[in-house]
């Protein structure tokens, strides 16, 4: 029997003439109908280029297929070589036979058209449907990707939908023509874990229903375990290893595969938390950072006259403390208020209420005791300043001169974070992502802070770089007795660095306690859901359950004050919020909508 797709000796290059640079050097693989192939690798490994070559989108990015065959079995039973097909032929195939889902659903849709119009267009172009027939088909497509209340959502514009919903819309568009092959390029990287689980479930279900072949590109081994039949590992444009899922995960042969599996943080349900520091051992230590009743609200207005209709309660009555040498991880989905909490500590947003105090007991230093490392190392360094100016900035801001002592400290910190000392005259763009984040860490440490706020500090980095930066952070913490506030949505990373975990949901802490306790025996319903959604190596070919519950709105009418929070204690250092009857709140919101 002929395979759906068989690629042999695929070579792809970019540029012309002397500038030609090959980025994929001879890739071979095969894919059956209804089979899922996961292509795994870090950025620059050529995994995306390989995928884009299959539907020849690589031609539009300045790339060229240099050599090789890609035999594709069309619906008509004919076998064609995609590497040599004409442009016109490819247009038909791209629309009808090979669908593609991109990483960023937010930027892949046209913001000025409703999603209904955009999906209908796919039907009009590919199946020649028009008017009501296209509309009916669109509705069916939205139902197929489990978008609740589809008829109403047709009239929505992309900005009115969440990232997860938009990715479903993208999938609906890709499926509009019943493709025989679906290429998903990191389809869930930009999404929250629980939404990710939803998208994965959807893809798995659709594949079962329609027998579509799926090529799934990712850097996340946990996801691979959940969905793939076969795995192909790529490094620097070459396939280093490929084979059935279980063989690759359990008996990897190539050193790079082993490295990937070992270096990459995997979530293991709280079994691998840090044990180098225990809060209960040192109850005498007074906290470095104490936050009490932190509340952040943003005014919400509506209508032409900007009438106030209440406030978005982004963070509501958050209390926690961190002792020296300890990491408190704040986890939650986007919109849960975790970044807002961090930003409030830095004075980037103004808290509505609440206090925080920092006590630096190591020294009597008067310097600014809280510093922050941002998520995106590409955006958080001014491209026009050299490293010396970048490192000098916090020092200047705290009102000190940049003298020889400060320069010596720069050199010491650069060396400590693993950057060459001669980088002092270089600019940010000359460094890789991981190096930039090291630079950001060095910058934050310039003023010798007591508390470091790390806002998704490793999530923009490649997996193996991530592991190294995490190790650096742990070393620095032990060395300098720093208190970390680690904001993240990535449970695997949290498990690796946190001593304690606070789970934030809809602006409130629902569970807080020792990392091991929270991750291994979550008590709150939301925490359980969150942890169940995290892909792990143990849960292979998992059938995720679809859940379409909406996140509750944080918009509250003016003058609304939440009820007193009640806590339930379970264990030494583990507290869970008792959910008072939510019906009262919902009736509030309902009354407001009318």
């Amino acid at each position, binding site marked *: 029997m002929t395979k759906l797709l068989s690629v042999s000796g695929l070579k792809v290059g970019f540029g012309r003439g002397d500038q030609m640079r090959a980025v994929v050097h001879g890739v071979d693989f095969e894919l059956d109908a209804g089979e899922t192939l996961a292509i795994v690798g870090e950025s620059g490994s050529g995994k995306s280029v390989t995928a884009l070559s299959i539907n020849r989108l690589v031609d539009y990015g300045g790339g060229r297929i240099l050599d090789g065959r890609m035999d594709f079995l069309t619906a008509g039973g004919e076998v064609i070589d995609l590497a040599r097909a004409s442009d016109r032929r490819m247009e038909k195939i791209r629309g009808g036979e090979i669908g593609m889902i991109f990483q960023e659903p937010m930027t892949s849709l046209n913001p000025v058209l409703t999603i209904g119009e955009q999906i209908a267009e796919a039907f009009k172009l590919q199946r020649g449907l028009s008017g009501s027939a296209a509309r009916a088909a669109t509705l069916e497509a939205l139902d197929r990707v489990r978008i609740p209340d589809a008829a109403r959502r047709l009239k929505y514009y992309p900005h009115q939908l969440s990232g997860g919903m938009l990715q479903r819309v993208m999938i609906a568009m890709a499926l509009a023509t019943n493709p025989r092959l679906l290429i998903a390029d990191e389809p869930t990287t930009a999404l929250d874990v629980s939404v990710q689980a939803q998208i994965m479930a959807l893809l798995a279900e659709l594949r079962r229903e329609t027998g579509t072949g799926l090529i799934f590109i990712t850097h996340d081994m946990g996801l691979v375990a959940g969905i793939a039949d076969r795995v192909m590992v790529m490094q620097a444009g070459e396939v280093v290893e490929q084979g059935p899922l279980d063989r690759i995960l359990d008996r990897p042969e190539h050193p790079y595969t082993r490295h990937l599996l070992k270096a990459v943080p995997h979530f293991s349900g709280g079994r691998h938390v840090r044990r180098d520091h225990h809060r209960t051992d040192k109850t005498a230590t007074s906290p470095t950072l104490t936050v009490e009743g932190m509340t952040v609200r943003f005014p919400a207005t509506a209508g032409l006259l900007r009438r106030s209709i209440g406030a978005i309660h982004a963070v509501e009555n958050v209390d926690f403390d961190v002792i020296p040498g300890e990491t408190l991880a704040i986890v939650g989905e986007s919109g849960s208020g975790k970044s807002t909490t961090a930003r409030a500590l830095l004075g*980037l947003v103004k808290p509505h209420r609440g206090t925080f105090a920092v006590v630096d007991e190591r020294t009597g230093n008067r310097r600014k005791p809280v*510093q922050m490392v941002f998520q995106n190392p590409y955006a958080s360094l001014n491209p026009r300043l050299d490293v010396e100016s970048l490192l000098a900035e916090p020092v200047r801001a*705290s009102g000190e001169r940049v003298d020889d002592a400060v320069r010596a400290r720069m050199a010491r910190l650069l060396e400590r974070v693993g950057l060459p000392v001669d980088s002092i005259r270089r600019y940010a763009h000359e460094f890789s992502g991981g190096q930039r984040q090291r630079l950001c860490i060095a910058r934050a440490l310039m003023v010798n802070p007591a508390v470091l706020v790390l806002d998704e500090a490793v999530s923009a980095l490649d997996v193996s770089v991530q592991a190294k930066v995490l190790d650096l952070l742990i070393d620095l913490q032990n060395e300098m007795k720093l208190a970390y506030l680690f904001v993240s949505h990535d449970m695997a990373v949290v498990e690796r660095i946190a001593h304690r975990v606070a789970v934030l949901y809809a602006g409130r802490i629902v569970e807080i306690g020792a990392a091991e306790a929270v991750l291994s025996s979550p008590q709150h319903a939301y925490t359980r859901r969150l942890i169940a959604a995290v892909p792990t190596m143990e849960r292979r070919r998992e059938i995720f359950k679809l859940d379409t519950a909406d996140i509750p709105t944080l918009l509250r009418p003016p003058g609304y004050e939440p009820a007193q929070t009640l806590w339930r204690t379970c264990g030494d250092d583990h507290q869970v919020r008792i959910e008072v009857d939510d019906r009262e709140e919902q009736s509030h919101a309902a009354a407001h909508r009318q």
Partner: protein
Amino acid sequence: MKAFLHGLLRHPSGRIGAAIVLVYIIVALLAQAGLTPYDPLKQFRIERLQGPTFAHWMGTDMFGRDVLSRLMIGIGQSFMVAFSSVGLAAAIGTLLGLTAAWFGHLWDGLVMRCMDVLLAFPAILLALLFIAVVGPGTFTSILAIAFVYTPIFTRVVRGPALSIKTRDFVDAARSFGSSSTYILTRHLLLNLVAPLTVQVTLALAWSLLTESGLSFLGLGTQPPNSSLGLMLADSVNLMEMAPWLLVFPAIAVMLGILGFNLLGDALRDILDPRMRRVVA
């Protein structure tokens, strides 16, 4: 500075642009130092309206004055007006644009609406209006041209400044507690160097043209002083009889504009640290 010059010389269009601008500046300085072939005001009555000869390389005008000498003075005059007016416009425009983007709200609205009103008028008309109020002369034409080009700088600065303001490194700076002045200069202004240099060189070219226009209309530089525009104005009626009177100042204007534009392109490339490796 050494690296900067090196980069400028390595840049293909930068070399040409810099050479042209440098020649102009030398010519202007020589003229200011009085090192013209003849006294620009001296009238050789017998040699009126002569074509280019060995004695007078660019001929003489209708009063018998040496065109080359007057051209040298004129270049100095036109450059002085162009540089001062653009310098003024860039300074005021940048300040207004930066503060508008940074403070936002009412100040932003006020500044930008005023600039919109100014932009609504054609440049030369606005300059005319200004001169009509203040009176003609070199100094007023500097002010008039600065007045006309300020809104363009304000806009060019405000747009990118608004987008840079939301970048993470500005947030990072605020989290260190850096002062507003520091953020405005080191983070915003420094990142605006590229659009600003391009705008400055373009505006230099335009203002050279506007100055010529104003002088042509008799509202800029006043005779017997000389400027490129004034020379063009004087020569128009004699175009058929003495084309050299028109051709040399016209070429001088054209080459000057070309020089600024080439230099501007080169500066944009060189001043960007991301391009430095590629260029040098």
